[in-house]
């Protein structure tokens, strides 16, 4: 994916919504410029406003969706930073650097198979809406461990979304990567767009290669600067180390060394 140059800035943003969605937290904040510029697959570096030193660094969060001048993120608490961000309430302010990263490549008009795993589904909501607006044929497969996460699928909307849970507590039981070949049978010339845990993305990559279908995967990494300066967020690819923040987060699935 070519890195697209869209100016990013640091914004101080008021939180206008904060509510639980299953085990996740949906937070909406007003950020007019980011809402106007962000493209599906881009991310933000977010921290709570102010001088607190703990947690020290902003956290990378995918843009879950945009609504007018509001930017929405979905947060899973996995550590100190996300615990803090999950605790923000209406009236709090966030320090947000963005929009960052290359985003998904939406060129073409072929069908799209969108595959999400866990919190990886969050940025795919923005992607799905953009694909629908472009009249692209669309199917979304969202996989979660259990119902507590799977309820987040309600944020997707559309009749083109199927839910999978590993324990069968919601939707179909199984892994989200399993039905991919069957879906592709009826989607000629499709592209896969995927975001989720590395094992899921590796499985999607293998399946895409076996079915002869291109796939774009959105990767994650620990980050510090978010703008390509510190070399901290690299992943191993066939072309050597590549920075997830500025040369990604979206990569051709065949480029990744799993």
């Amino acid at each position, binding site marked *: 994916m070519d890195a697209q140059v869209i100016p990013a800035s640091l914004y101080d943003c008021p939180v206008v919504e904060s509510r639980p969605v299953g085990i996740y937290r949906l937070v909406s904040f007003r950020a007019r410029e980011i809402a106007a510029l962000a493209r599906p697959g881009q991310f933000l570096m977010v921290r709570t406003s102010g001088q607190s030193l703990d947690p*020290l*660094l902003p956290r990378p969060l995918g843009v879950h969706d945009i609504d007018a001048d509001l930017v929405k993120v979905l947060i899973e608490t996995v550590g100190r930073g996300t615990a803090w961000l999950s605790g923000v309430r209406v009236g709090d302010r966030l320090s947000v650097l963005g929009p960052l990263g290359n985003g998904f490549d939406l060129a073409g008009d072929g069908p799209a198979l969108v595959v999400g795993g866990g919190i990886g589904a969050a940025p795919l909501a923005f992607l799905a809406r953009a694909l629908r607006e472009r009249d692209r044929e669309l199917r979304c497969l969202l996989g979660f461990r259990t119902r507590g996460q799977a309820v987040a699928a309600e944020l997707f909307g559309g009749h083109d979304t199927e839910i999978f849970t590993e324990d069968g507590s919601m939707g179909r039981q199984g892994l989200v990567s399993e039905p991919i070949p069957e879906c592709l049978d009826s989607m000629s010339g499709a592209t896969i767009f995927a975001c989720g845990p590395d094992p899921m993305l590796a499985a999607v990559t293998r399946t895409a290669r076996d079915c002869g279908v291109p796939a774009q995967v959105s990767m994650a990494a620990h*980050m510090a600067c978010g703008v*390509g300066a510190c070399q901290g967020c690299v992943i191993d690819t066939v072309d050597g180390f590549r920075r997830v923040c500025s040369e990604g987060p979206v990569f051709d699935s065949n480029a990744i060394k799993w």
Partner: protein
Amino acid sequence: MSVSLETRLGPLQLRHPVINASGTFDVLEADKVLEADLFTDFPFAAYVPKTVTLQPRTGNRPHRLYETAAGLLNSIGLANKGIENFIADDLPRLARLPVPVIASVAGEKTEDYGRCCGLLEERGEVAAIELNVSCPNVELEGRALGCDPDRTRRATSLAREATSKFLIVKLTPNVTDIAGLALAAADGGADCVSLINTVHGMALDPWTLKPVLGHTTGGLSGPAVKPVALRAVYLVSRALDLPVIGMGGATTAQDVLEFLAAGASAVAIGTANFRDPLLASRLAGELADLMELRGLGSMDELVGIA
């Protein structure tokens, strides 16, 4: 009263005392991504690019970063395009900056310090050179050169022979006697010392209980190390007649004020850039306010008063 922030670092005239720490701010990358016109409104008084080595280096395996309490562990591993590519690709663009450029070089062998300085000697874009003898994330001849006074002196003197530019030696805190290392650098012909580089550290994943960093150990930076840095600046500035550039956890104008009072002639901001890429723009103004509150009109009235 009006406060003057003008700072002298040898032949370098800086409009204020705040520069960036090498490796934490890349103006060429940041300018591609950020809306701000960094070449016009450059926030620092001098620019220190990422350390370069004679040959390109791919750097360490992921993970390279891990946040700690009020700190950051990094193990980047001196990933860089190599000095020849830096000279060909980056220097012509850095020439547009409105501030002096301080190149940073490291050697995989002691001789490399002299060779790198030799390659930069004729480059007018480079106002000064900082020798990184102290990165803890790379095995240089088996052990960080900057932990050994004799090898520090030797690397510095090889650099000194190769360049007439203002020569800064960046010291590691991972030693018993940092003032001794500073004196060795001075003996070798350094014009200035900068300190501190990162502090040795590591982290275990809370669930797997295995080291998080790909390189197992890394270097700690950020507010957590400020007391370590402040002590080092205080002791070294008293042991040496040379100017000192202080760094290590400075996040606010108050921190900058304290490093200057401790004996630093200039202060570098590193990890704090990751919280706000344009922080330094504000710091200079806030520093002037803090000085005015204390009746301090210039750097001469502040540096070393602790």
